[in-house]
């Protein structure tokens, strides 16, 4: 049971990444693309933590924390750039 549940979860989040990629490719608006990139970052955090469970090591916390921070900053920076034409005013 403990071996098949992570596989199911991997499949769910991987499929989610593909759906996000579809939205990035066909998004009619830049807001859609920013939102899809943000969702991709969140799915990748989930995949990293799942991989940590799968391997049984605690190394991947730090990686997922870094990915979370970089993802948030990049979302805000992209939105600021589209909104104001400048990131730090």
């Amino acid at each position, binding site marked *: *049971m*403990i071996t*098949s*549940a*992570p596989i*199911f*979860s*991997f*499949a*769910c*989040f991987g*499929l*989610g*990444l593909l*759906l*996000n990629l*579809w*939205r990035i490719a066909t998004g*009619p*608006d*830049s*807001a*859609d693309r*920013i*939102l*899809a990139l*943000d*969702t991709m970052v*969140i*799915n990748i*955090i*989930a995949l990293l*933590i*799942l991989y*940590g*469970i799968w391997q*049984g090591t*605690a190394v991947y*916390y730090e990686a*997922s*924390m870094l990915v*979370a*921070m970089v993802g*948030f900053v990049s*979302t*805000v920076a992209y*939105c*600021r750039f*589209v*909104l104001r034409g400048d990131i730090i005013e």
Partner: protein
Amino acid sequence: MLAEILISAFLVIAGIFGLVGSLGMIKLQETMQRLHAPTKATTLGVGGVLIASMLYFGLIKGQLSFHELMITLFLFLTAPISANFVAKTFLQANMRAKDLPPSQSEYGWSVYVDPPKRESPEGD
């Protein structure tokens, strides 16, 4: 055994929530509707995975850690902020100020109107 069932249940529920959140990106029609799916469902899915990870390392590996709660807290704090920014981006690109209801205050919506100037540069 009970711990394994609990961890597996958390993992499966988290996977379903994550998939629903990403499916909503495709299925919903408008951009403002699409804003709902990732900010709520996917954040909850990641929260489930983090709880499962915490239970796994605490109950099976025997090394309880609260690192995951930090990531959960960070995601729960930043999801509304990034959703607000995405909504502002959409409003600036697709809506004009006259399409929106009045902001019920002295100043208009912050997407269209610059912030009011301070009286003194030192602040109050």
